[in-house]
């Protein structure tokens, strides 16, 4: 019997979070009071789906629009166009932001700038409780704060302290606790470990793995480090200049990447092993990532692509499923 609770658990295979044709254009320069100026197409029509309990990795280099995508999903920035549906709720058009934020939480990259320096840890964690769980008594809130701090590896003694008394890794734990205190269902993590030291990075990655189990979370994990993503995420989407160029289950992406950009990206990651390093062949890309302000015509990757042909210059390739669950936006990959 397929019970209702099972359906609620999301085992039906239905997408839990579904993003369709998402766009975010930012105006640039000083707009005059009336006219409209140029726009940067930070996110230009991306679509993906996430099943319950999955961690989707969103990888790309700086300026590819991964962070903007993350913020737009939670409407921390308003999308220009597109549709976001989360657990049956129309995120793009809802007016009930509180209901939305209670379920979907964001974790910021920089634990130094994401905590108000003038607030104690207790007040930082109490803020979402005041907003989302107004009916709770103060002592219940305090119990929940202590409990959440313990889940992320801190103790009740830390409640009265201020952010500057903590190290980077501990601050990121506080930030995680703030996002978790109301038991959200989806977390969008924006490079939560990239500001941390190597030994602390591992602690936070392991913590995220554990929290995902304990809270039954689904996640969108944004990162530039392919190795970190590999350890945490499945499936993985690779972004380049505002678009997804490849999306695939984890094993396939790393073992047989289809898009030439993904291939170059993977080959550029140095491996901490000198023996393997001597054999590694780096596929060096020429030039820099172009500015999203005047993105190249056709396939945005064609000026740097070793395979680029005539059609790549003229037409923009669509994301097509080439193997089951593995799609790439590349003419060459589609017809080898």
């Amino acid at each position: 019997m397929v019970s209702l609770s099972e359906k609620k658990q999301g085992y039906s295979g239905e997408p839990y979070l579904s993003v369709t044709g998402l766009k975010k254009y930012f105006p640039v320069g000083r707009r005059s009071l009336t006219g409209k100026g140029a726009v940067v197409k930070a996110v230009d029509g991306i679509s993906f789906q996430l099943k319950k309990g999955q961690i989707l990795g969103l990888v790309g280099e700086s300026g590819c629009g991964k962070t903007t995508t993350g913020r737009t999903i939670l409407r921390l920035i308003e999308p220009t166009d597109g549709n976001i549906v989360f657990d049956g709720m129309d995120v793009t058009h809802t007016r009930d932001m509180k209901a939305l934020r209670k379920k979907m939480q964001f974790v910021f990259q920089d634990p130094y700038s994401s905590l108000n320096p003038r607030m104690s840890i207790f007040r930082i964690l109490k803020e979402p409780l005041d907003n989302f769980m107004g009916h709770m008594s103060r002592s219940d809130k305090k119990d929940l704060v202590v409990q959440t701090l313990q889940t992320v590896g801190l103790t009740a003694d830390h409640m009265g302290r201020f952010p500057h008394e903590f190290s980077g890794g501990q601050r990121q734990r506080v930030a995680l606790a703030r996002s978790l205190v109301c038991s959200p269902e989806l977390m969008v993590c924006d490079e939560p470990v990239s500001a941390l030291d190597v030994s602390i990075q591992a602690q936070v990655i392991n913590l995220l793995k554990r929290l995902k189990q304990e809270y039954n979370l689904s996640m969108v994990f944004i990162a530039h480090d392919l190795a970190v993503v590999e350890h945490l995420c499945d499936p993985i989407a690779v972004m380049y200049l505002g678009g997804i160029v490849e999306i695939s289950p984890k094993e396939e992406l790393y073992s047989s990447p289809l898009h030439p950009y993904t291939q170059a990206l993977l080959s550029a990651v140095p491996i901490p092993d000198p023996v393997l390093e001597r054999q590694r062949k780096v596929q060096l890309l020429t030039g820099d990532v172009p500015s999203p302000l005047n993105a190249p015509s056709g396939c945005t990757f064609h000026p740097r692509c070793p395979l680029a042909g005539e059609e790549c210059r003229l037409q923009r390739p669509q994301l097509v499923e080439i193997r089951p669950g593995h799609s790439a936006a590349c003419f060459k990959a589609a017809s080898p």
Partner: protein
Amino acid sequence: MLIKRVLKNKLALPGLLVVVFVILASLFASHVAPFDPLKLSLSKRIQAPFDEHVFGTDHFGRDILSRVLYGGRVSLMVGVLSVLFASIVGIILGATGGYFGGKIDYAIVLVLDALMSFPPLLLTIGLMAVMGQGVKNIVIAMALSSIPTYGRVVRGAVLSIRQKEYIEAARNAGSGDLKIIFLHVLPNTIAPLIVVTTMGVASAILTEAALSFVGLGVPGPDPSWGNILADGRDYISQAPWITIFPGLAITLTVLGFNLLGDGLRDVLDPKLKQ
């Protein structure tokens, strides 16, 4: 913690001592002053200092020391009140404009810039000429002409704090605009604001003195530092003490507030924290 750092600072501590001394002296003027500041005594006209009257007397035989002490009440009150009003209005305008941006910000910047296009002293004099003399009107005129200073400082600070991730984090935690402004934005603008208001009191005291000196300030016979100076103007060659002592009081007070402001700038600098 903050007090400890103020006491350690080489600028803030002397500034604080001077300011506290001046405030106490004015506050307890009625206990400290040896004479009635308004009492005329024709027999004691223009007496040199350090005799019966420590600071001497003026052309009506009034005791200068007592007048300087009582005058301090008026001058300090005018200075503090005008800065208080100006900074409250400045905080409201600056925070609104800086936080919301867009057309509201454009309108507020326009108003502040328009106010700033007049030299502040001339603007104050013009306003006084329209509204007439009186302590209340001085406070209003001086407050109006210094609103842009505070508005701009607060707007600048809010603009930089708005960029911080903890503001976005607060929105992510479900807080609304008003809550974000009061809980996250304003507490973090306090540091630069304290510095400008402290120094603002100093310049307000100078403005009050200038206004009273040209006869647009606090009306006599009630003393203020400015009108004691003005009173002594005609006797400056025979009885320089009438102008010297209120002048010294102004200098000392302004110096005190400025030192305190400079010291607080160092003390509140987040880079020196840790």
